[in-house]
């Protein structure tokens, strides 16, 4: 383990790649490595990019990487694609747009699948961010489809969250309003050469103004930018806005690294506790067959879901408590 930690810190690509696999596969031993890496995290700047499928997220990430590399910054990319709920498989195609960076030592790109079960995505992506951070990447870009709470939570672990839309998505903007309007720090209307881009910009600004009360004096007001990512138009301006947001955060936190702010630690820990509880209690109930048994008894009319839930959970919790005392 000690050597693995050293290898990550020295930027060894293979070790990092395998560690992320272990995180994804929930190999228990990986926790020890993550514990040892934690003190080396908190240096990277994490950018989240989200939006509906086909709006140009991967293309934008590719251009951002190119710009950051020109400035001499190193970049890690985590690209999340959905797992098929039917087969458990996934096609991870975000790399297609970024392959020109694959031979660049300053860039590490990794595709992740949502894997769907028990909402572990946020946890495993965060751990992967930690690994890339400890590896020494200056910027980490997390790209995910902005559907579902899990994906939104993922981008929330970023310092700056970019929400990408395209013209003519009127109703989709409505959908964004309900969920992720609040988490966006910068809004981008991509494919701005298309008809209706000004209208989309206007609508977005209107919606942001409506939630004005949240943006009282001195608070960050999310800008709305136009972009044609595929032609590299507007990407530079986006990076400038990211820099402004970064300065804003630095000022707000008074020098504490974002990663170590109280808010962030609270969120991170609560996520971890929730996940661990699910792992230790729920997944074990599934594996032991107790869960299915309870389903059958409810079906047979022998019990009700409320009682069954108590019967399943309470003994497990008591056991865990006793187990803790013995230690």
């Amino acid at each position, binding site marked *: 383990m000690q050597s693995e930690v050293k290898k990550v810190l020295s930027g060894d690509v293979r070790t990092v790649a395998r560690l*992320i*696999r272990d995180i994804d596969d929930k190999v228990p031993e990986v926790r020890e490595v993550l514990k040892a890496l934690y003190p080396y995290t908190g240096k990277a700047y994490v950018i989240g990019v989200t939006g509906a499928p086909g709006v140009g997220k991967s293309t934008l990430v590719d251009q951002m990487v190119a710009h950051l590399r020109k400035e001499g910054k190193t970049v890690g990319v985590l690209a999340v694609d959905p797992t098929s709920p039917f*087969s458990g498989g996934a096609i*991870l195609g975000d790399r297609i*747009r970024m392959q020109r960076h694959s031979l660049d030592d300053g860039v590490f790109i990794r595709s992740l*699948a949502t*894997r769907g079960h028990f909402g572990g995505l946020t946890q495993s992506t965060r751990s992967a961010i930690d690994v890339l951070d400890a590896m020494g990447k200056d910027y980490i870009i997390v790209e995910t489809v902005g559907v579902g709470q899990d994906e939104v939570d993922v981008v929330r672990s970023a310092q700056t969250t970019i929400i990408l839309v395209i013209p003519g998505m009127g109703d989709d903007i409505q959908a964004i309003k309900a969920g992720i309007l609040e988490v966006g720090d910068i809004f981008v209307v991509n494919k701005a050469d298309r008809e209706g881009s000004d209208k989309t910009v206007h609508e977005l600004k209107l919606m942001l103004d409506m939630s004005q009360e949240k943006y009282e004096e001195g608070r960050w007001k999310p800008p709305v930018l136009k972009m044609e990512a595929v032609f590299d138009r507007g990407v530079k301006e986006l990076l400038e806005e990211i820099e402004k947001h970064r300065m804003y955060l630095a000022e707000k936190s008074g020098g504490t690294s974002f990663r170590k702010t109280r808010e962030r630690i609270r969120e991170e820990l609560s996520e971890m506790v929730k996940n661990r509880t699910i792992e230790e209690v729920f997944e074990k109930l599934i594996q032991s067959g107790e869960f299915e048994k309870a389903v059958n008894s409810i079906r047979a009319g022998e019990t009700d879901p409320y009682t069954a839930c108590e019967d399943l959970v309470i003994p497990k919790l008591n056991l865990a408590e006793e187990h803790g005392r013995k230690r």
Partner: protein
Amino acid sequence: MKDRKLRVMVAKPGLDGHDRGARVIARAFRDAGFEVVYTGLHQTPEEIVQAAIQEDVDMIGLSSLAGAHIYLFRRVVELLREKGIDDIVVCGGGIIPEEDIPKLKKIGIREIFTPGTKLEDIVQWVKENVKPRIEGVKCKVK
């Protein structure tokens, strides 16, 4: 610990611009429950190998319909060896003449699938011949 998920890469080396077959294969792999990294057209062997390392895949499936398979497939295997990687299985498919298959196998390509091979046969072969990496138990390229 739960079962590890098989991660495979489908890659198109060289200048051949036809990826319908590769996409069909990628889909079949997804439907078999694998995580499939697809890297798109016109990849150099160097790009493919680097991506395979970053993605930590258990297998690389190379597709070639344009005749340069001997050179390109060999280069992928060589690069893996140069980097000391012996636990990624490499197989290939596409328009590949019968007489080239023994040569490719000698180079280190584990299996070749030619047009007309049933998707389920390919999936079955992968399930039998490619195992997700488990620490300490490496599946070596024969």
